[in-house]
């Protein structure tokens, strides 16, 4: 391609293991006295934004934090269930920094940057120390030491957890660190504020325009640097495990101002979610991957049995062992039920498409805990010197253990589905969960706009084409606590004499005006269709044509359909109410307007990448066994898109990926 330019990650040279340490020693610092003169804006208060705000404030910068929720504690990191990885090797099972690095690179199907991933693995152990010191109540064993469990795609137990609420506990830890700084006056917190524009002055990010979601007031905020930590864009699909408010707006606004958007089509479809039950459904609920430690996934071996189950004439518990197909164990004997998420999701889709699905819609498989109940029950009976042949007793004891491990998840399932998962297997199906793609950043986590940084799920950096379980929490906190606070100093060291940034300039004026015009345009539209109508329609296009399997024809159609839908949106959307005051319809309309642009770039990116890797599965590129077929010769790069008017006109820039410390090979979990 003639217009292709190569991007440089600015990673330090030299051996992999020493890169981060050397980099820290060599970059510029800002003195404590000068930090007091520097303002930093952080958009988003999840694990990445919350931890960054707290740490930057603690270092002495004046931090302004923004979130659209009514409290920073409600950012969607709160909903992460299963755990956080760290190469502590407390279990003595052979874990190490290198192994975590290797698993993450391999899990990401060799589409992430070696240096970033190694740094992530390196700082992971510190995260656990930090969180424990903050009073995060991780699960412990009877000796009082921290407990671990195993997650998909790895052969060690390195996941730290707090029952099924790990994200909540870690976020409350970051929130508490923020609270300490808020009480010291070092963080000014702006809750119920949404960022609607980035302000660039002399080529540098110098502020943002926000809308106060309570009063509707459009406000100007200035700073010496802007950090975007606004999470992923899974809600592009309408139905996802994301919160209702999760959106791409902050990332998309900076993209339109010059930040490249990387690998937008790399999306994670999580294998274990509660299946869709009807058209009115507003979101999907995840059942933590940790359940695959003990749950076995199966469908009936015969289509007849599957049909009977769907019709309700056969109960899953009545199906004999030999009539069940534990398809993950069959296809991937080495990793079994703990294959990575992309592999497990595709395998479920394959079985359901072939006619073996087990709920009314035919889009569900079983996740069965019966064997685990018996295993734990026998173990307990033995420990307690009870009768190991007494089936009722074994079941009772086993259920107690399963309850202690996954109680809150089982309860959640029962409330939603109205079935008792202790008695009958859970029904699950894949759902959109996480986006590996995001704003392109260099090794310093800076975007292509000087002074504008992106951290956490909002950036693209560490997970390649597929994220391993329990690695999102790790990355969010690594970026916020341990990486950005160093790298941002290097940039800000040039700003110590700048002084306060005025908001009384033409750049702020223009940015504010563009936001106000956009709002006015939406409110004055005399359409008849609701915002949700468009969001649902967009979601259907993306799920059907850019979902778990994609092909050229579908993607080309998707680009056209999203274009047309966007056109229709501006003609016939009805945004009720006015700008002044609380108006959720307006907030939603502004977010969906951005999704309607991202959708087009998403499909274009998927169309452009003529290979299958991780969560990106192009039907044209698969092995005989239906596994993803990478093309390392042609596509061993990060696609970073530069905005150029229409999303499908975006200009491709490539960041070449080089693998010096791992061998580039076909991922196998067999």
């Amino acid at each position: 391609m003639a217009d292709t330019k190569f991007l440089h990650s600015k990673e330090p040279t030299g051996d992999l293991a020493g890169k981060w340490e050397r980099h820290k020693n060599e970059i510029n610092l800002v003195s404590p006295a000068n930090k007091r003169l520097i303002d930093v804006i952080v958009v988003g208060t999840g694990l990445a934004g919350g931890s960054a705000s707290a740490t930057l404030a603690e270092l002495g910068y004046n931090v302004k934090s923004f979130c659209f929720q009514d409290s920073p504690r409600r950012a969607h990191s709160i909903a992460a269930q299963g755990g956080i990885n760290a190469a502590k090797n407390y279990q003595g099972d052979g874990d190490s920094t290198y192994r975590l690095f290797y698993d993450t690179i391999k899990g990401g199907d060799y589409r992430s940057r070696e240096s970033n991933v190694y740094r992530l693995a390196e700082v992971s152990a510190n995260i656990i120390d930090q969180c424990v010191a903050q009073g995060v109540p991780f699960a412990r064993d009877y000796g009082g030491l921290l407990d671990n469990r195993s997650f998909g795609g790895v052969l060690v137990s390195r996941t730290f957890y707090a029952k099924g609420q790990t994200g909540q506990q870690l976020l409350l830890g970051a929130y508490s660190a923020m609270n300490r700084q808020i009480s010291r006056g070092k963080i000014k917190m702006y809750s119920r504020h949404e960022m609607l524009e980035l302000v660039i002055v002399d080529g540098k990010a110098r502020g943002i325009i926000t809308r106060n979601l309570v009063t509707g007031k459009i406000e100007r905020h200035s700073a010496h640097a802007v950090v975007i930590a606004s999470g992923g864009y899974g809600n592009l699909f309408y139905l996802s495990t994301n919160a209702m408010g999760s959106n791409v707006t902050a990332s998309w606004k900076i993209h339109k101002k010059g930040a490249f958007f990387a690998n937008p089509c790399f999306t994670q479809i999580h294998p274990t979610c509660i299946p869709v039950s009807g058209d009115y459904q507003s979101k999907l609920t995840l059942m933590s991957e940790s359940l695959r430690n003990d749950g076995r996934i199966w469908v009936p071996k015969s289509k007849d049995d599957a049909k009977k189950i769907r019709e309700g004439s056969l109960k899953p518990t009545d199906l004999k062992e030999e009539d069940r197909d534990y398809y993950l164990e069959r296809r991937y004997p080495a990793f079994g039920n703990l294959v990575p998420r992309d592999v497990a999701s595709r395998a479920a889709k394959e079985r359901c498409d072939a006619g073996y699905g087990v709920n009314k819609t035919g889009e569900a498989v079983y996740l069965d805990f019966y064997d685990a109940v018996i295993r734990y029950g026998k173990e307990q009976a033995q420990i307690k010197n009870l009768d190991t042949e007494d089936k009722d007793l074994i079941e009772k004891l086993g259920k107690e253990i399963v309850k202690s491990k996954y109680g809150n998840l089982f309860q959640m399932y029962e409330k939603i589905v109205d079935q008792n998962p202790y008695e009958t297997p859970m029904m699950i199906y894949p759902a959109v969960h996480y986006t590996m793609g995001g704003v392109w950043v260099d090794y310093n986590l800076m975007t292509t706009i000087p002074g504008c940084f992106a951290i956490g799920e909002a950036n693209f950096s560490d997970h390649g084409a597929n994220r391993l379980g329990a690695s999102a929490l790790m990355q969010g906190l690594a970026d916020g606590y341990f990486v950005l606070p160093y790298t941002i100093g290097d940039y800000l060291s040039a700003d110590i004499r700048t002084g306060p940034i005025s908001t009384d300039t033409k750049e702020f004026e223009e940015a504010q005006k563009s936001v106000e015009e956009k709002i006015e345009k939406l409110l004055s539209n005399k359409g008849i269709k609701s915002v949700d109508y468009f969001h649902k329609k967009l979601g259907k296009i993306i799920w059907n044509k850019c979902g778990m399997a994609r092909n050229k024809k579908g993607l080309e159609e998707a680009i056209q359909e999203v274009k047309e839908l966007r056109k229709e949106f501006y003609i016939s959307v009805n945004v009720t109410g006015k700008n002044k005051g609380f108006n959720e319809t307006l907030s939603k309309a502004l977010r969906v307007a951005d999704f309607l642009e991202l959708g087009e770039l998403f499909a274009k990116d998927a169309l452009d990448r003529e290979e299958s890797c991780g969560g990106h599965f192009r039907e044209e590129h698969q092995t005989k066994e239906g596994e993803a077929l990478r093309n390392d010769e042609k596509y061993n790069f990060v696609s970073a898109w530069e905005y150029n008017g229409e999303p499908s006109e975006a200009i491709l820039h490539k960041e070449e990926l080089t693998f010096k410390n791992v061998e580039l090979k076909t991922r196998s979990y067999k």
Partner: protein
Amino acid sequence: MKLNLKIWRQENNKSKGELRDYEVSDITADMSFLEMMDVLNEELICRNEDPVAFDHDCREGICGSCSMFINGQAHGPDRLVTTCQLHMRKFNDGDTIYIEPFRAKPFPVIKDLVVDRSAFDRIQHAGGYVSVNTSGNTQDANAIPIEKKDADKAFDAATCIGCAACVATCKNASAMLFVSAKVSQYSLLPQGKVEATDRVLKMVKQMDEEGFGNCTNTGACEVECPKGISLDNIARLNREFLKAKYKTQ
């Protein structure tokens, strides 16, 4: 299902609110309560009327945003759930449902069912943290073993989602269950012990300044808490508070 809804409508914190009647039909048992509200709002938007404002986000019972007082109960008739996890199978065809905001003096109404719960944040600012720098230069996570039963109790207290059902349901609008959960989490862990005295005094002081009422041990908060936070925590808060008072005298 066809339902009659009586919903609290209030333009902003300065205007007067009232219960207004709405009707929804075609509600199925599998819908969540908020999805039922979505159906109503879609209809209102189609009629060019103002949709009902309510707080919600994760819709899986963990963010603590949703906050509806349904038929006189915080988060409605089911137990151990938030409003977003409440399903319509708990209601019957033809039911009349009263939907009001979480009411308390420290929680002014922003609009309709949305209230301002930032008083909870300010209580946390007063002392809801362990004063440790986020430098990562702390000791190894396993350096201090913590007895499992304490770790488990600390965890149970820490699962509070800050939804404020406890305040909304309390006849005194007391925030004791909320405050006690945080105080308990830290007082049960060695990391939080160092500042325990200061913390409890500061947080209780802020709680009083915000205008929350006193606890008279009716236990309604424990019943309505979607996370099952135990009343034991309030007993622990009282103990910690007394201890701190004597220590500082």
